């Protein structure tokens, strides 16, 4: 069965510090990978998605970046955190099913980031 891991679970960082969140998937190959952010009481905002190693698409211009160094590893980074980067960060994976688009996504446990 497939599993998705995220760490750390919680993180408190000062403004201006760097960030690295990691996501790994087990039990599947060549998944589509996604990073979302959810502000308190809000819906999910898609930040990045990747359809393969080294292929990153950004949805929102910001001070965050993403990388996919391995097939089942997705990393979210920042060189200098802002207060507005606080939120709940979720990694997800999905696989296309045939020709009809039905990319069901499976989410990790999330990382709660607080920037002070």
């Amino acid at each position, binding site marked *: 069965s497939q599993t998705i891991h995220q760490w750390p679970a919680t993180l408190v960082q000062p403004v201006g510090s760097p960030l690295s969140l990691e996501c790994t998937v087990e039990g599947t190959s060549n998944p589509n990978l996604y990073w979302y952010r959810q502000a308190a009481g809000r819906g999910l905002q*898609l930040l990045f998605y990747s359809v393969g190693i080294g292929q990153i698409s950004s949805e929102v211009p910001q001070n965050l970046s993403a990388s996919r160094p391995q097939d089942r590893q997705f990393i979210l980074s920042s060189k200098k955190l802002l207060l507005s980067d606080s939120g709940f960060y979720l990694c997800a994976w999905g696989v296309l099913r045939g*020709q*009809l*688009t*039905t*990319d*069901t996504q499976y*989410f990790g446990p999330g990382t709660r980031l607080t920037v002070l």
Partner: protein
Amino acid sequence: LAKTTQPISMDSYEGQEVNITCSHNNIATNDYITWYQQFPSQGPRFIIQGYKTKVTNEVASLFIPADRKSSTLSLPRVSLSDTAVYYCLVGAQGGDKLIFGTGTRLQVFP
């Protein structure tokens, strides 16, 4: 990308059937309709997915009319543990990303 519209919140009582309707007027021919459930401090969880007519699983039913411009998630006999946010999504062309709206916050009372 098809946009979805759903009620911001709904209230219900234990044991009742809850129907949450989602509008997606610009749905494309190849798009599927998917519903997710999210509890606080957890990632969304897949509930059900359909293309047309009716789909039923052990958790819910999904009703999709012939024009596919809307869909209704039906939760039979809800319990307190069904209190969550429910998202309606329409699969993007190419299947490379999904757009989550703000969802419907369902509150179940005893």
